[in-house]
């Protein structure tokens, strides 16, 4: 075999299917700034957070031009949690087509030009995506930072429709109250939308379950023994849905046969339907979060004896001991705060007054259809929970994302009662500390009569 060096080089270049490197002689000290653009782009696609794309772009000119070479940058999640404020926050927002985002990391508000979201109802779905529904009843997954958009089957492809027909604006606001993804709809290896992503929603008048995938033509109904679902969580390959009574159902998506949700955990003792339920995976556990509201709509008589340890009787043997009662010297201050709290409750048609967290624990008992029982959780450890008009999320507080450990961050998702308020909904948000049961504010309020402020994570 005799091949001259020159012809070989030509051959090798010819066979190369990807862009060819420009460097002729490999140097001992290769320079990072000389990496071909497409490799810097490959690196950018493998970053974990959208924020880091800008860090790469600020390193040097060559990396900047690589970072700017994307038609749309990869749809990565934001590093820290943001609150996407409601559409009516300021006069003129609609005309300027901007939406304001409050960054929990630096506690500043940023305006992003997002004509794609004008007049559309949004839900947080994690991984940096939003589910959006317009009065046109088209449903999209939209990544506001990169502007990637995935069209999902429209509202009229859900099995159960409203009877009689209602205004499209009402459908937009109410038809899909919750949506959860099994994973990011973006595949960073193939750089394409990923059919492995399952999009599960609570929908319709009686709040039942359906799912779809990117590229599907319709939403597929899930058969379940219950209705009036409050929340869904994706946990270890299965979807878990909690209904208004607090009973939990599980299902595994199989595209080839009818999906049926089965009951796995009973109603927790002492809960009421007016207590909003969330279900969330946190540090390997599945948690049920109960949000108790007061205010004149929730006439306080509905729960006359509501106390923090209402659920202690759920599972006494496994209970973690409650922390010691607060010390006496703070009593006076506490009384004042209580007064304020009472005033707040009576002034508003609704306001969050407490949270209870229960853990689903594996438990088998002969004759019982349930696989789990509940154990009260007094401490979330390093975790912070985020609940509201988003897929409920648990984040680690120690990973520099601006949140405090052992807290529940909540936004105002009580859209059914927005009309009952004096200035609009969007005020019932804050941070609940599991340690002392106290409330703090993260953002004052984001008034609106139809658009909810929500976690963008």
């Amino acid at each position, binding site marked *: *075999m005799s*091949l001259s*060096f020159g012809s*070989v*080089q030509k*051959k*090798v270049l010819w*066979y*190369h*299917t*990807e862009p060819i*490197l420009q*460097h002729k*002689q*490999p140097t001992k*000290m*290769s*320079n*990072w*700034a000389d*990496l*071909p653009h497409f*490799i810097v782009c*490959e*690196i*950018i*696609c*493998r*970053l*974990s*957070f*959208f*924020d*880091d*794309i*800008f*860090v*790469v*772009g*600020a*390193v*040097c*000119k*060559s990396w*900047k031009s690589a970072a700017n070479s994307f038609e749309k940058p990869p749809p990565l999640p934001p*590093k*820290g949690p943001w609150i996407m404020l409601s559409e009516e926050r300021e006069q003129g927002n609609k005309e300027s087509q901007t939406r304001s985002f409050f*960054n929990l*990391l*630096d506690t*500043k508000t*940023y305006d992003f030009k997002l004509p794609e979201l004008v007049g559309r109802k949004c839900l947080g779905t994690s991984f940096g995506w939003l589910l959006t529904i317009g009065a046109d009843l088209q449903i999209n997954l939209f990544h506001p930072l990169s502007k990637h958009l995935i069209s999902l089957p429209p509202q009229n492809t859900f099995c159960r429709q409203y009877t009689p027909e209602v205004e499209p604006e009402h459908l937009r606001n109410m038809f899909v109250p919750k949506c959860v993804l099994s994973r990011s709809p973006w595949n960073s*290896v193939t750089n394409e939308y990923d059919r492995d992503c399952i999009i599960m929603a609570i929908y319709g008048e009686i709040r039942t379950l359906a799912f779809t995938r990117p590229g599907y033509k319709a939403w597929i109904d899930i058969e379940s023994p219950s209705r009036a679902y409050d929340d869904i969580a994706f946990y270890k390959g299965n979807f878990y849905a909690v209904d208004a009574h607090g009973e939990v159902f599980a299902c595994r998506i199989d595209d080839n046969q009818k999906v049926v949700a089965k009951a796995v955990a009973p109603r927790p003792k002492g809960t009421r339907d007016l207590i909003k339920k969330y279900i969330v995976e946190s540090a390997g556990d599945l948690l049920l979060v109960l949000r108790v509201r007061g205010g004149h709509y929730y006439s306080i008589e509905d729960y006359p004896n509501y106390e923090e340890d209402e659920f202690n009787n759920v599972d006494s043997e496994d209970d973690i001991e409650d922390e010691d009662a607060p010390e006496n010297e703070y009593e006076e201050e506490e009384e004042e705060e209580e007064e304020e709290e009472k005033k707040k409750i009576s002034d508003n048609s609704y306001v969050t007054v407490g949270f209870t967290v229960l853990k689903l624990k594996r438990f088998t008992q002969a004759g019982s259809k349930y696989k789990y029982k509940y154990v009260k959780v007094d401490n979330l450890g390093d975790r912070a929970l985020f609940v509201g008009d988003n897929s409920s999320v648990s984040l680690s507080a120690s990973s*520099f*994302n*601006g949140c405090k450990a052992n807290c529940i961050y909540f936004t105002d998702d009580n859209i059914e009662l927005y009309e009952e308020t004096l200035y609009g909904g969007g005020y019932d948000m804050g941070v609940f500390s599991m340690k002392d049961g106290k409330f703090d504010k993260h953002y004052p309020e984001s008034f609106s009569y139809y658009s909810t402020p929500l976690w963008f994570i």
Partner: protein
Amino acid sequence: MSNQSESPNPTSSSNKITLKTSDNEVFEVEEAVAMKFCTVKQYFDDENNNNVTSGTSTTLIPLPNVESHPLAILITYCKKHLEIKANNADNKKEMEIDMEHYEREFLKNVMPQELTELILAANYLNFKEALDFFCRAVASAIQNKSVEYVRKFFGLESDFKPGEEEKLREEFAWSFEGVDED
């Protein structure tokens, strides 16, 4: 000078392929290893098609854009990759765990400067798994770090005009928050 790649699989009697680097070192590798380098595979397949009569002769493939240092590392990585795959043929999860473990150990012995050479070599050879792995390694080194840290880590200097960088930072202020301490 010959750079015999160590410990070939004794059970395998497959053909050897000889690779010659830009600094004129010669590597004799298992066919299975060489075939993971798509550039080599393409060349090899084409040679075979053109040269039906030559039978089992050992092929010498020149790699004018690859030096011996990164090639030796890539061959080691490739062998390990194939070995882990073979050991866990029926268990994808186990394979991923083993691979992750090996990759973590691998990175402990690689300097940031070496990583560029490896990326360029893997790209030239069109060795997809390695390129993906090295890009992931760089991405995770950048994650949650400040611009200054990234420059220092990769030995890069800012070549922006005065004011240009400040403008960038102002425009996307939110993305520069909350990074790890340098």
